């Protein structure tokens, strides 16, 4: 942009300064709080990118203006986010970006997205949750060997302890000072005491649990994909496989209160999410999106959305459903928004391979 003429620039400064003075002098109490950053309020879309291409990105969607900034990490920090962004979590005005194939977690100010540091020394990290100024990262470590949870001191952003869990630990939630970790390649959930950071117990659930949420009755819902045995041509061997299931776990006594098996042994349900009121679950099954009321005792037969999404979530502020369409991973993906009743609302383009959302 061309610089204004010096005299004009001086005039501009005077006007700006006096305007600022006018506003501050006039009524300081009623003026809106200064924004903490460009990305204080909106929807973050995590785009995993292509394996080994280093093109992960966080896109930012402004609900009011409906504008998208495609790659805010790179825009702010002038370097790429990393290779295969798996997940993103917020805690105390910071965002933690779990970058799977870079074996790191990027820490940023959630309002400005300015980089605050990098947590390294991780091995195939997957998901993050935090409590007591400590972060917990699930890690696969290696295919075929036990996974682990690394405990991170959030002040120094360094790993202070590692706790062995089951095979391929996936998502985790923290409730009542306990960390619940689903082990994706076996049939268990590991429960870690967040006070002592020691494994408290391992509860057997169902094969391949992949996601979990806490409802408003403080019950934990776990979605398990089912055990899948593959034929040589990578189709599912149905006779040797088991169906997935939706499970309600009572964290008070670790009892399974409800176990709802799915019909198909071939398809794996996944992407369990919950709405803002914490009474309606959403998940993906057999290429469609379903809705489930926590009071129900049977799985729904009719889909809410007859469409497959790579990533799925519900905006707690608006109850709008966000679906991430990653396409063939060769071009930018898109996000499609739906009204709570399932009617499509609008869509917008993000970056390559959108997989999850964070609402602020």
């Amino acid at each position, binding site marked *: 942009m061309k610089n204004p003429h010096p005299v004009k620039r001086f005039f501009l400064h005077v006007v700006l300064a006096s305007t600022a003075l006018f506003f501050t002098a006039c009524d300081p109490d009623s003026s809106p709080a200064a924004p903490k950053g460009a990305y204080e309020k909106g929807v973050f879309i995590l785009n995993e990118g292509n394996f*080994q*291409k*280093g*093109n992960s990105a966080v896109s930012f969607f402004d609900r009011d203006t409906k504008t998208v900034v*495609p790659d805010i990490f790179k825009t702010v*920090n002038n*370097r*790429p986010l*990393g*290779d295969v962004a798996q997940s993103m979590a917020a805690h105390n005005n910071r965002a933690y970006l779990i970058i799977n*194939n*870079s*074996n*790191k977690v990027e820490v940023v100010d959630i309002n400005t997205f300015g*980089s605050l*540091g*990098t947590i390294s020394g991780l091995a195939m990290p997957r998901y993050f949750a935090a409590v007591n100024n400590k972060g917990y990262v699930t890690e696969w470590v*290696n*295919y075929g060997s036990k996974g682990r949870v690394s405990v991170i001191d959030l002040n120094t952003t360094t790993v202070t302890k590692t706790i062995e869990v089951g095979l391929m630990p996936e998502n985790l939630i923290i409730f009542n000072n306990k960390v619940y970790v689903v082990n994706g390649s076996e049939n268990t959930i590991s429960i870690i005491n967040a006070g002592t950071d020691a494994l408290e117990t391992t509860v057997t659930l169902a094969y391949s649990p992949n996601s979990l949420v806490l409802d408003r009755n403080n019950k934990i819902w776990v979605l398990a994909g089912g055990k899948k045995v593959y034929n*040589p*041509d*990578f189709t599912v061997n149905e006779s040797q496989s088991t169906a997935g299931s939706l499970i309600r776990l009572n964290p008070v006594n670790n009892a399974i209160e409800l176990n709802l098996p799915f019909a198909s042994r071939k*398809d794996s349900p996944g992407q369990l999410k919950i709405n803002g009121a914490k009474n309606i679950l959403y998940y993906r099954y057999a*290429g469609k999106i379903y809705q489930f009321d926590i009071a129900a005792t049977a799985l729904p037969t009719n889909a809410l959305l007859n469409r*497959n999404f790579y990533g799925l979530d519900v905006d707690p502020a608006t109850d709008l459903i966000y679906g991430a*369409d*990653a*396409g*063939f*991973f*060769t*071009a*930018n*993906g*898109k996000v499609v928004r739906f009204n709570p009743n399932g009617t499509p609302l609008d869509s917008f383009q993000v970056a*390559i391979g959108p997989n999850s959302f964070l609402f602020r």
Partner: protein
Amino acid sequence: MARWVYFSFLFYWLGLPGAQAQTDSLRGKDLREVQVFGQPVTRYAAGSRVTTLDSAFLHLQNNSTLAEVLQFRTPIYLKTYGQGMLATAAFRGTSASQTAVLWHGFNINTPTLGLTDFSIIPVNSFNQATIQHGSAGATYGTGAIGGAILLTSSEDQPTGLQLQAQQDFGSFGYSYTSLGGGYGNAKLNLQTNIYQRQAQNNFKFRNITKFGSPTEKQENASLTGRGFTQDATFKLNSRNTFGFHGWYAFNDNESQPNMVVANTHARLQNENLRLMTSWQHQSALGNTAVKAAFFNDFMHYQDDNNNSVTKVQTYQAQAEHAVLLKEKLSLKVGGEAQYFAADVASYGREVSEKRAAIFTWLRYNIFPRLQLSANLRQAIISGFNPPLAPTVGFNYYLKNNPVNSLVLKGNISRGYRVSTLNDRFWPTGNLNLIPEASWSYETGLKHQLKKEQLQISTEATLYHLAVDNWIQWIPNLIGQWQPQNLKKVLSRGVELSTEVAYQMQTIKLTAGSNYAYTHTEQQKSYQASGEPLNQQLIYVPKHTATAFGNIYHKNWLGSANLNFTGYRYTTAENDRWLPSFALLNLMVGKTFMFQRYQFQVIGKINNATNQVYQTMEYYAMPQRNYGLSLRFKFN
């Protein structure tokens, strides 16, 4: 539609003088013995752009790889995944598997991946490299869509005994050792070369992807390679010649991780044994050549989480017969057969495949001014035959005198590529793939000037290359990646080149340059991929250029080679790109002669301008570095 207009135009050219030539057909009975073999296959490539890599350059760079020499002398964009790492070609905007690479007439693209890694083809394993630009399925078979690279050993045979020894050193732990020898007499010619090469590649670079852009030392990028070549020809008598070529190469290379990813200690081992033997027979009926080859390709990829072994054995035979039908009309007919036996752990079973092809090639120099060629190939593969592949082309001399010649060229050609074994037999492979197919149209002008000490050769080519049923791996509904005939791609461009040689008493100067403009876009997608149409494909530079200059004075030589690579988009939307770069390599050498012994010392500066660049995004490349070559030769 345009295709048929073009065809009829060419047939008009073919038909008209053909009718006039009928009268002297009687002469056709008088089959004279002519040296048809020894004629390059490019004889049948009238109208298309064919270039040869400068043998003096190949000799100076004999310790490097085909990837490096192509980068500095051709418009082909080499997608290089780090220093000395996996390098695949984008020729006229096409994909890595759409360039055929032939060694003594046999395709060496691996049947599993369908491509050649140019970083493991050492320059010392061939003496001649010919580059066919554009589709040429009729002559080179599968894979010749963007073009073909033909590797052969030298035509010049040694007489008496020759010996060579060479030792090179370079930055980042580079070392290259080779020993070679040759013997020749009237009947027998033998040439042997053995080499070993290694590099640590622990160069420093600024990691621009990390907080604070720290300077790091490259990890996991060391290279080790060794191999030998053996060429033998035996002239039994004036009518029968036997040939044998053997090429063994072993490479054990770490795979350089890019700046963004975790180092997973990836390592790629390749062991390739290629043997071929030929018999050439001349008789009153023409010239017959029979060739047989055996390839054993072993590949082992491993990293912290993967371990994959691929073994493929390829047995193949070719037979062809060439006749001179008339004074200036030569016809070659032939056939080939291939048998692949693949033992790939991931396939879950042994896989074999038989392929065959028949072809006929015609070259007709109707008038001194007009040369025509018309070629045809039909490949046969059980289950899915590739399309019939014709080529027609002409060279028309607008001007032809001892000083000046100006040729107008035109060519239309079909290319095709059979899907690879991985495409079909990988667990998520697709048995319903049909071969990729292309139509390539080109026209050009070539001017040559020979005047006393000065020689200038200039060529300009315009092309239009449409590739249909382009195969790409994409995820299906349940997230499994599977190959599909996904795209129709159109590539259009211009290629310009000029070379000058000037001799003046004790000084000889040679110089040249190449420029290519490449516009390649997806025109159609057969599935809703989300990839926008009509955008430049990723990693296809619109502009590439090379330039070189050599000076020879008495026993001294100086050489400069420049590569310019324009910006390349890294996203399908064309909203991000890698910046353009220029690489300059300099060499100075001196030769000392003592009777029949010759010593040569060559000093090299690579990346002399200290350019920071990437050919693939986030893969670090070394800045200025040095090399020294000590060469000994007897005879």
